[in-house]
């Protein structure tokens, strides 16, 4: 089901961010930069999967354009801006800024994930019905 697949992907991203944060807290800056890069790519890939495939298909099936999927797209926009700001702070060795922005990014990301996992993904599962597995295959191929 979409809910399980996408929820697992959320958790993968969470773990990657945590690894980066832990590495930076341990002053292992090179490792932190590498891990943050992985998190950055994984999160953007997740947003792309949603925006290019999942949301588009859901909107076509239900006719719900400008509803929850549009809301999620705008939140992606906000989160992408934060990821850029964190990347910049890390590149400039401004580690306090990285942790400060990271805290708000994490809360915002988790609120966003909660909305998707509790409302949107179950709605998508219900709209896709038997085609969920096919969609998961498509999303995997995007990875």
């Amino acid at each position, binding site marked *: 089901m979409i809910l399980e697949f996408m929820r697992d992907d959320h958790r993968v991203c*969470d*773990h990657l961010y*945590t*690894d980066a*944060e*832990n590495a930076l*807290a341990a002053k292992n800056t090179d490792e932190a930069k590498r891990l943050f890069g992985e998190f950055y790519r994984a999160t953007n890939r997740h947003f792309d999967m949603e925006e290019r495939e999942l949301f588009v298909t859901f909107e076509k099936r239900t006719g719900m354009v400008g509803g929850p999927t*549009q*809301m999620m797209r*705008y*939140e992606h*926009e*906000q989160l992408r*801006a*934060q990821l850029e*700001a964190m990347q910049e702070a890390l590149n400039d060795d401004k580690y*306090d*800024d990285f*942790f*400060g*922005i990271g*805290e*708000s990014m*994490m*809360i*915002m990301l*988790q*609120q966003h*994930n*909660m*909305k998707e996992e*509790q*409302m949107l993904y*179950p*709605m998508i599962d219900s709209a896709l019905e038997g085609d969920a597995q096919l969609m998961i295959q498509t999303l995997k191929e995007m990875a």
Partner: protein
Amino acid sequence: MFNRGLSLDQAPPISVVLRFFLSVPIFGVLFSFLLIVYPTDILIPNHPTSLSAIHLFFLGIISMSMIGSLFQMQSVLGGKPIPSPLGNSLIIHTFFSVGLIALASAFLFHLLAAFVIAAVLLGSSLIYLVQLILPLLFGGVTHDTLRGMRLALLSLLLTAVFGAVMASSFANESFGTLHEAVRTAHYSLALAGWIGALIIAVAFQVVEMFYVTTAYGNWYKRNVFRTIALSLILKIVWLFLALPYIWVFDLFLAAVLLGFVVTTVIRLRARKRRVSDVSIGFWYAGMGLLFVSLISHIVYLYTASALCETTALLSFGLFSLSIILGMMAKIVPFLVWFHLSSQGYLQTPIMSNIIPAKQNKRLFVLFAISSLLALISFLTPILLSLSGIGFFAMFALLAYNLIAAVRLYRHTQTTSPRMSMDFSSQS
């Protein structure tokens, strides 16, 4: 770093939540004042001063924070935002605050008419709150947190009804044969149903996601609210029919809450996110205090010891305060940052500059010392006065932190350049 207002449209204006949060230290200071001045009376169960302090604490501090958080959480956890949040929060907050002042004064100064005012204002504000939010929790996708929120709101509704009944008894100084049953139902619903269920429901989301832990077990998530609801219903039936073995239902409640303590501590200890954060300290302290509360209550069931009864109530209150302070330390800076950045201000401060970590650590130290003093105050009431001084300092610091965050919010709005936007800002 801005959007076109959609995300902001779903969240209530920041003033909605801050109205409730800023009231918390005011009632906190009043509560602390009672601890300092009347330590002996407060340690006597059912003493009017004790009842005044208990209601200032559980309504003015705990419920005030929880209602404010509900306005914020509803759109995230409940899926649908609360309609007209500015007007509705103003009505609820005003009625609730005035009603609480009336109730605390009624107990403290033996003002019988004030009980009527309290019953009307507190009762109507809470019933209005429940009828506003509860329908929003039905009709969409259901999940465990939503079930917990439904139980919490239904419990709050019944708590308010029983509370209003008791307030009218106090106003008439006429207590029927069922008064004790009503009183027990009132506090059982408030503590296990309203406070316990809502904290557990929120923890299911917050602990796993903010601290990157494993998820709570499906079996526990599926059954915890059923067990709390069933235990409370049966306990109330048993109370009103005066049936024996009523303590069995308290054991069930204690068992699910102990399960919550154990599963939460296991998750927090194995959390993946290791960066130092004072909210973790508040969560651990909260779980420790809940453990003490449950053990004290179980011992009380078998011994009827007044000391155990007082310790159980005191540590349950401190458990809920600990969780709330920990959450507030995160929520308030986040809200300030979120609303400013969503309104397009380019020089939005980062969270760690809104309430610095050292301020939150000071808050935790004051909480820990004051709580410890309160818990050992059975040795001598002077310790409760000292605890009151500690809580007074803690709530003063909380007020300072909150006001500093609001001032920074206003300062950024007046000084920071702003992206041109095609939506009107909210604040």
